């Protein structure tokens, strides 16, 4: 073939980011605004067990997961659990429409510039990263099934017991 068109065939699908949020690695820090505009910094929760949940309001499994996360937070907040929902959607309309339908006790932050998204590289939503008191990612869950809730609870209880 005169023109080497073969190379045009391949669609290189290297992802936009490499997997940063891996089990056993230190949870990448971030500073993001919550719904009131206050800056939430992950480092400040060192010493607590933190569940980071990447989500978007249009994602049905994310919406299904929220009541379960809220129940978990209410049950263990006094024992040292923190839950931070990291919204990746830049539509404030969708966010507020969703929040009007649910009551959430845990912290919601907004990642409009993809800072946390780049650090944790979730490809599927929701993605939950459970961080131990030492700031190390101990568990990662991709997507949501009802069965995950018991898994989350078992893992959180185990991590809360650790010094």
């Amino acid at each position: 073939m005169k023109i080497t068109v073969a190379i045009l065939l391949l669609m290189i699908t290297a992802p936009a980011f490499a997997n940063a949020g891996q089990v056993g690695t230190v949870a990448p820090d971030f500073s993001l605004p919550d719904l009131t505009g206050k800056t939430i910094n992950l480092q400040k929760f060192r010493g607590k067990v933190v569940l980071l949940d990447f989500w978007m309001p249009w994602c049905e499994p994310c919406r299904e997961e929220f009541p379960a996360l809220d129940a978990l937070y209410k049950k263990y907040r006094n024992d040292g659990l923190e839950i931070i929902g990291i919204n990746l959607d830049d539509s404030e309309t969708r966010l507020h429409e969703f929040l009007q339908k649910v009551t959430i006790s845990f912290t919601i932050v907004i990642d409009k510039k993809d800072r946390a998204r780049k650090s944790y590289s979730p490809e599927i939503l929701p993605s939950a990263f459970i961080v131990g008191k030492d700031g190390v990612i101990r568990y990662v869950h991709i997507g949501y099934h009802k069965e995950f809730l018991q898994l989350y609870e078992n893992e959180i209880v185990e991590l809360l017991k650790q010094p």
Partner: protein
Amino acid sequence: MQTTNITQRVIQNKYVHQIRNILAALSLVAGMVLMSSADAGACASCGCTLSSMQFSDVQGLTLDLRWDYINQDQLRTGTGTISPVDASKIVTSNGPQEVEKYTRNNYFTLGIDYVITHEWGVNVQVPFIDRSHETLGTNSNGIVAGPGGGQYESHTDSFGDIKVVGRYQGFTPQHNVGILFGLKLPTGTYTATGTSTDPTAPGSVPIDRGLQPGTGTTDVIVGAFYNDILSENFGYFATALFQAALYAQDHYMPGNGVNLNAGLRYLSFPVSGVVPQVQLNFRFVERDSGSNADTINTGGTLLYISPGVTVPVTHQFLVYGFVQLPIYQNLNGVQLAPRYTTSVGVHYIF
């Protein structure tokens, strides 16, 4: 008669073998899809995909550097191979058939991708092409070139035609559907020369237009893409691209081309971040046109299967590799084709 019957059986067997190869490859991909279809109902409730692949919506800059190795050393005509000796006996409407020996290509492509907002992005591809070529010309016996056949050898290494492609992917909240629109610019040279190997006519000779680093033309590129997840374990994507030159340059116009790609990605590899995948790549390209074009031996239809893998090195840096294997080729005239191609690259996320 017996020889004819044997020949017919050989030809039939060759076609059957080719069809079996195509069906086997398609079955592999179909099988992977079907395997996942049982989970498809659960998939809709398990997660939502984000557009994090090539057409990413993650804001910011990424750089990509890729090396493609393409060694075109197999003469083919139609859907089969042809020996150089048999090719040398062909007489086309333009005269005796040219018999090329090889074209070896090393493409080094710098990709610069910038996502302006979640909906808009732009990608620039800057290729540097190292290409060696030799032809026996139009007066050979397929082994040795005769005088006056225009035989030559060439080696070029220079920048090729830069592509600038914008994309809009704001049709869905997850930004997994989009359109592509851009231009291939005439930045590569189209007047490079080779060295005649005809002792009766030594000196510099122009390289065939189809083998120049650039086409000399501005081409429009339009397309669309889609990606989604099939299940917890598999993601998939599809793209379609059309490219057409807007004008002829110095009596040469490359043929219009259509690329269709579909791929499966395995998301649950035991080693975190490693993503194996397989693609099917289809291309149809028309013949080149113009008095300076080879209108006989250009264009065709190709189908490749391309397994590959991406591997993260750090959270900002990853490497990838692919091999492309032809499973169907139908080429106009007589053309050099690769038996396979390889691509390796690095990707850096700012």
